[in-house]
């Protein structure tokens, strides 16, 4: 699914929501705010240090009690894997993966670890109909699996393609993703398992604000080594995890076309109606059901529900 259609979907759901709930939206918008938390923690990821040992993947697997991997974590053949022509992505069984990139700008391969970037203003959160997501003051974007209904809106909304769908339980379908080790570590002031496990300290954990200074400083001290960009400083309004690199980011698979302001800005109004959606949820679904069984309709609600299903 292309970026454009994803945006369209978001805009569509907003319009639909706004049409239903005009006035409560305005009210909540005035009080609610989703600007980044001042003392939020973050992680600086320095690609120049990564040697692709996959120790972080193993640490994540252990910490989050994920199922056994298909291959050992010291098997490097996974870097050659392609799934539908794409490098590995995060799944419901692996919340972080490392990929290898052969680039024009560097003779040595570049390795890039991906996981949830814990956006300051997360689109997954704003796209969630049942309010399952929370951005905690510590900086983590977490979700409540008990509330999640598996609608997959967040999968479509995420600019980094991170949330993954668990097919394991038909009765309780849920989204799975990296939660910054919130429950087991971050909450108690400890860095996430991957950060601690890394032999090269590719990742540095700290207050987001201080890490940005360190990142700028590394670039300033080594202008020949680093490209002059911090990926995630501005992208989609700033992310809790951000990257510095020795090759232009697009060569290591980063999307350089993301907006520099939060995607949420377009959907803030929509955010406010989420609790309302909760209350009218059953009615809405009965509505969808009736409409779809009836066939033709030009209701907003129907279009959205339909789009959501297709957007895989």
């Amino acid at each position, binding site marked *: 699914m292309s970026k454009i259609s994803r945006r369209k979907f978001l805009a569509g759901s907003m319009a639909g929501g706004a049409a239903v709930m005009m006035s409560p939206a305005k009210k909540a918008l005035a009080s609610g705010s989703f600007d980044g938390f001042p003392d939020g923690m973050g992680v600086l990821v320095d690609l120049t240090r990564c040697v692709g040992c996959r120790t972080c993947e*193993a640490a994540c697997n252990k910490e989050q009690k994920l199922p056994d991997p298909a291959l050992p974590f*010291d098997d490097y053949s996974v870097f050659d894997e392609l*799934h539908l022509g794409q490098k590995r992505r995060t799944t419901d069984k692996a919340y972080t993966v490392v990929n290898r990139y052969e680039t024009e700008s560097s003779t040595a391969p570049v390795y890039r670890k991906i996981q949830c970037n814990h956006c300051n203003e997360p689109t997954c959160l704003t796209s969630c109909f049942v309010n399952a997501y929370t951005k905690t003051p510590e900086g983590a974007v977490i979700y409540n699996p008990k509330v999640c209904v598996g609608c997959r809106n967040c999968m479509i909304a995420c600019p980094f393609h991170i949330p993954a769908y668990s097919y394991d339980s038909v009765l309780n379908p849920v989204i799975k993703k990296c939660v910054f080790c919130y429950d087991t570590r971050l909450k108690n002031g400890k860095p996430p398992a991957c950060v601690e496990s890394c*032999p*090269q300290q590719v990742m540095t954990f700290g207050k987001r604000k201080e890490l940005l200074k360190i990142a700028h400083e590394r670039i300033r001290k080594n202008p020949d080594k680093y490209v002059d960009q911090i990926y995630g400083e501005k992208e989609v309004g700033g992310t809790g995890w951000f990257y510095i690199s020795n090759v232009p980011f697009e060569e290591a698979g980063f999307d350089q076309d993301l907006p520099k302001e939060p995607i949420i800005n377009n959907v803030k109004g929509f955010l406010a109606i989420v609790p309302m959606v909760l209350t009218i949820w059953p009615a809405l679904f009965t509505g969808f059901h009736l409409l779809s069984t009836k066939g033709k309709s030009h209701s907003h609600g129907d279009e959205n529900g339909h789009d959501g299903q297709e957007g895989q």
Partner: protein
Amino acid sequence: MAINGKQLITWMGAILLSCFLAVSCYAMDYPDEVEIDSLANLYEGVVFDHAMHVEATEDCSDCHHHTTGTQVANEYCAKCHDGAQEMDIVSCQECHSANPLSPENLHIPRDDYNYHLDKPNLKAAYHLNCMGCHQQVGGPTGCEDCHAKTDDGERFYYSGKYAPEEPAHKSGH
């Protein structure tokens, strides 16, 4: 043999001179071999051939910064640290904390006079140093070239006797 006063003085002079010469080459004594094992957990400790590395590399400061008293190669560091700054502290772990990210350490108020804020932890100080150089000079860089996995390590990586039995039937997408 018997040594008289004059001979003693000559001998002592010679010894002093050789000490002086040694000092001017290498500012301090160093061990031939060091067992580095304070972190050992997933991997065994490392027996580090110090003497071989002193032979094979240019300068003590390739690894010890300026603290053994030799001139730092890194121009940027040399701006503030010239070779005269020999320090009592040489061992990596006295400056590079094994666990700088512990909750206790995170809440230590930052000393305003502390210039260096971006200092790697001990595990990374070793690896950035060893691997950084080995990548350039063709020294060993494979994880098990320097230290074998322990039983805990094999379990952690699902490797060796803990390897998944049915390999890759269908992985996620």
